[in-house]
C-alpha cells in the first residue's frame, strides 16, 4: 500500500446514472473534482446528492456511466482507493457504545493493519474543538454536533486526497460551523479535493471554489470562483443558492 503512487485526482464522473426501481435518481451526471479545491454540491432534498456521494465513496454501484480516479477508470472502489478517500454522511456513523477516542482508534488500527498511517486521535479531535474531558465518554452521550465533529475527525485523520462531506454542518452551532470551515480550508490547502453538500449557504459561499447545482438528478448549473472577480462569483453563486431555497442557518 505504500510507495510512490499516482494521484487519484482529478476525479471525473461521466454520464453517471442511477435508478431505484422506477425512480430515476441520477441522469447522466458529469462532474470533475480537482485537488486543492472545494466543490459545493447544492440541490433540494431528493435531488440525488446523497446518491452521488455514495457512488463516489464506493458504497453504491452506478447503473451507468464511468468513474475515473486520476488515471484509473474504476468498476469497484477498491481498498487502495478507499484508503485515499473519506466520507462523512449526515448521520455520524459512530459506534455509540465507544468513546470518541476509541472510535477513532478503531479505524486508525484498521488503517495500520492495511499498512496505512493515521494522525493521532487526540490531536485531530482537539483540532476540531472536542473538549478533552469528552474524549472517553461514550458517543451515545454526545450531542449531535459533538458526534458530527468526531465523524469529521475520523475522516480527516487519514489525510484523504478526496473528502466527501454530505451535510457536515448539520447540528453544528455557529462556532462549530466556523471551526469546521477552517478545517476544510486547511484540508484544501493540504491538497485534498473536497465535495461538500450543505444547506448552510453562508459557509458554502465562504469556503467553496465552485458550486454545482443538482436538480432532479442532473447538474443544471456550475459557477466557479475566478481569481479576478470575487464579487462576480458571489453574485452568480447567490443565484445558484437562491434556486435551492432559503438558508437553514439564515436566522442563526
Amino acid at each position, binding site marked *: 500500500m505504500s510507495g510512490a503512487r499516482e494521484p487519484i485526482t482529478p476525479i471525473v464522473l461521466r454520464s453517471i446514472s442511477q435508478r431505484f426501481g422506477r425512480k430515476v435518481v441520477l441522469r447522466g451526471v458529469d462532474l470533475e473534482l480537482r485537488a486543492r479545491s472545494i466543490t459545493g454540491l447544492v440541490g433540494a432534498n431528493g435531488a440525488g446528492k446523497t446518491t452521488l456521494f455514495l457512488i463516489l465513496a464506493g458504497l*453504491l454501484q452506478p447503473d451507468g456511466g464511468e468513474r475515473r480516479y486520476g488515471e484509473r477508470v474504476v468498476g469497484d472502489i477498491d481498498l487502495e482507493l478507499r484508503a485515499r478517500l473519506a466520507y462523512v454522511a449526515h448521520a455520524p456513523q459512530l459506534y455509540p457504545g465507544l468513546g470518541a477516542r476509541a472510535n477513532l482508534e478503531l479505524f486508525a488500527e484498521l488503517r495500520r493493519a492495511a499498512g496505512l498511517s493515521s494522525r493521532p486521535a487526540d490531536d485531530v479531535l482537539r483540532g476540531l474543538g472536542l473538549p478533552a474531558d469528552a474524549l472517553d465518554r461514550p458517543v451515545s452521550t454526545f450531542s449531535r454536533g459533538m458526534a458530527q465533529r468526531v465523524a469529521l475527525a475520523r475522516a480527516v485523520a*487519514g489525510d484523504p486526497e478526496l473528502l466527501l462531506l454530505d451535510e457536515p454542518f448539520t447540528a453544528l452551532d455557529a462556532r462549530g460551523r466556523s471551526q469546521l470551515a477552517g478545517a476544510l480550508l486547511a484540508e484544501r490547502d493540504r491538497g485534498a479535493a473536497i465535495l461538500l453538500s450543505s444547506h448552510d449557504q453562508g459557509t458554502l459561499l465562504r469556503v467553496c471554489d465552485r458550486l454545482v447545482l443538482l436538480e432532479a438528478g442532473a447538474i443544471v448549473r456550475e459557477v466557479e470562483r475566478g481569481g479576478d472577480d470575487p464579487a462576480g462569483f458571489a453574485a452568480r453563486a447567490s443565484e445558484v443558492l437562491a434556486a435551492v431555497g432559503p438558508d437553514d442557518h439564515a436566522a442563526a
Partner: protein
Amino acid sequence: MLHLARVRLLRQSLLLLRSELRQELRDLELVLTSTFFTLVVLGMFYLSFAALEKKHTLPAVPGLLWLTVAFVGTITLTRAFDREREADTLRALLAAPVERLAIYVAKAGSTLLVLLVCCALLVPGLASMFPAGQVFWDMPLETAALVVLGCLGYVAIGTLFAAGLAGGGGKNMLLAVILYPVTTPVLMFALVTTRALLDKNPNLPSYLGQMAALDVILLGVGALLFEPVLVGAAPARSAQAARQHRREALRAAGRQEPR
C-alpha cells in the same frame, strides 16, 4: 501481494472481532438475550417431555437441539446488526480501507461465539434432562464437533442475509422470514448427523465430514456474495469501454496502440 492481502484480512478480522466482543462484553445484550431464551426453552422442554421414555425422546432430542439453535440464531443475527442499523456504522466500515471480507468474518465470528455459549448451556441441559442425550456426555469430542459445525454453517449463511438487510435498511421481521428457508439445509444436515451421533452410528465421521464440506461451501458463498450484497456488483465493462480504457491507458503511458 496475495500474502499481504491475507495478512491484512486476518489482522482486520481480528481487530473487528475484538471490537465486537468488547462492545458485547460492555452491555452483554446479545449473550443475555440468547442465554435467557435458551434457558426458558430448556425449561419448557423439560416440563413437556421429561416424563417420556428414552425410545420416545431419542428422535426428539436432535429436533429440540437444532430448533433451539435456529431460534437463538435468529435472535442473535437480528440483534447482531442492530448496532450497525441504528448508527449506520456498517457504511463507515464499508467506506474505510477495510477488507470487506473482514467485516463478514468478524460478524460471523462474534455471532458464532454467542451461539456456542448458548450451546454450552443447551447441550448439557438436554443431556441431563433426557436419557437419550447421555451420548453427548459419552462422546464429548464428536458432540463438540457436531455443535461447532452446525452453528458455523448456520452463521455462515445467516450473516450474509442479516448483513444484506442491515445494509439496505431492511426490517428485522424480514430477516426471520428469509433466514429459516436459507438455513434449512444446514439445519437438516445437523439434525441427521445428531441422530447418527445419538445412535452411535459407525458412519458418524462421514456425516461430520459432509457437514464440514457443507460449511466450506456456505462460507465460500457468504464470502463471495458479502460485498456484492452490500454495495452491488461492478457492472461488466462493455467491449467498447474496455477498448477506450486500454487506449487511454496506453496514451497515459506514452505508447501507441498496436494495429
